[in-house]
């Protein structure tokens, strides 16, 4: 069994128009910049994929990564908890012009909905958002005298995730807080593509320290020295072109 793929273009080749794509990361930490840029490259060359529904905690920052994906016009709808950032101009302008749809989800509910998607739980109850606009239209039930909101699972066709080490079986580790949504999205997508800083031999990752077991991963591509969104934005980078 070998889940490694030779390059980024091959890694994102299967993503089609209209798909739901989970993209890992919290702000810049864990953002799979290289996978996203490979997807933009494909769109610029072929006009596809488009009309994507993207699931991410945020809405991108500056003009690289997720912000660049949105700026390229590939995203129809965003499901996220916090579409603000230091420089969210790309999303904000499209949103205010009515050109992109937003489903706002409380962060813990977002995480739990994704886990539920991966764990085969079609719905669960949470006190989060009870009595607020974000619970509008959702079933409410009482348990032990307290009201809860019913939330549905969230699944995706594809997940794009950044990890640290990976082996050909798909076992993964992450780096510090870059872990965030990665392990959950790996579980919830039909096809999970992971960029890792280094591909190692099976067994090189301590079985006790595997964070994502390989069963949740379909493709692994090596990207040594991956870019940090924060560094790119401090350098005022723009994708597909990098400013002087």
């Amino acid at each position, binding site marked *: *069994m070998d889940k490694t793929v030779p390059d980024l273009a091959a890694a994102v080749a299967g993503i089609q128009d209209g798909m739901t794509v989970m993209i890992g990361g919290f702000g810049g930490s864990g953002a799979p910049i290289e996978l996203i840029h490979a997807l933009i490259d494909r769109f610029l060359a072929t006009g596809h994929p488009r009309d994507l529904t993207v699931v991410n905690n945020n809405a991108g920052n500056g003009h690289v990564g997720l912000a660049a994906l949105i700026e390229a016009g590939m995203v129809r709808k965003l499901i996220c908890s916090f579409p603000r950032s230091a420089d969210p101009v790309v999303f904000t302008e499209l949103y205010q012009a009515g050109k992109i749809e937003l489903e706002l989800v409380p962060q813990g509910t977002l995480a739990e909905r994704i886990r539920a998607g991966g764990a*085969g739980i079609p719905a669960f109850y949470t006190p989060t958002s009870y009595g607020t606009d974000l619970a509008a239209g959702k079933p409410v039930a009482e348990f032990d005298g307290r009201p809860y909101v019913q939330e549905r699972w969230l699944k995706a066709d594809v997940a794009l995730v950044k990890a640290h080490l990976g082996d050909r079986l798909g076992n993964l580790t992450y780096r510090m807080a870059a872990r965030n949504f990665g392990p959950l999205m790996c*579980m919830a997508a039909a096809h999970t593509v992971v960029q890792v800083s280094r591909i190692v*031999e099976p067994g090189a990752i301590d079985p006790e320290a595997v964070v994502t077991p390989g069963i949740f991963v379909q493709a692994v591509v090596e990207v040594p020295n991956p870019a940090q969104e924060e560094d790119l934005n401090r350098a005022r980078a723009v994708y597909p072109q990098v400013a002087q």
Partner: protein
Amino acid sequence: MTVKLTPTQMAWRAAQDIADGAYVNLGIGFPEMVARFQPPGREAIFHTENGILGFGEAPAPGTEDWDLINAGKKAVTIKPGTAFFHHADSFAMVRGGHLDVAILGAYEVAENGDLANWSTGPRGVPAVGGAMDLVHGAKRVAVMTDHVTKDGKPKLLKRCTLPLTGVGCVTRVYSSLAVIDIEGGRFVLREKLPGLPFDELQSLTGAELHTPDPVADLIVPEL
């Protein structure tokens, strides 16, 4: 002529249907033997409910580590690429549809795919383990069982009489006499022991066996 397959031979036959790279959960008892018969060139990855993916064979007697066991509480070993995880993650794999195949034992299987394998009724101590999770989680649920009970009564039935493990979940039965698919609420006979007359097999089966396609000989090695 083989009168009926041994459990080892049933396990061999079931192993032939497991693809390279498949994620597989093998039920406690006879199904565990399936792991021994992977065809050359194929490497399935075995999952056990108690939190191991990609474990290896049994250790030599006397070298067991009792923190490293499978769901049947038998000692196993690790291999390069093994991962440990807790029970909720383990059943996220099961219930989230990530396993390709689960192979379970059975008290009864019905032509509608219902399975009974956890309770023999009000007497005795009931024990369900992970069976009810596996039957609604794995992409393919197969059963490995003697074709008849020790008293010679059919275990493949029109409807289960014992408490159910799952509804409409089984798609293939590896019995001691035949390989039978469950399709559209019917038993479809795919393979039977060579020399076993169809009528005899039908008489040992509690529901109609359908043969829309040619029936192959069920041939397994001496094991």
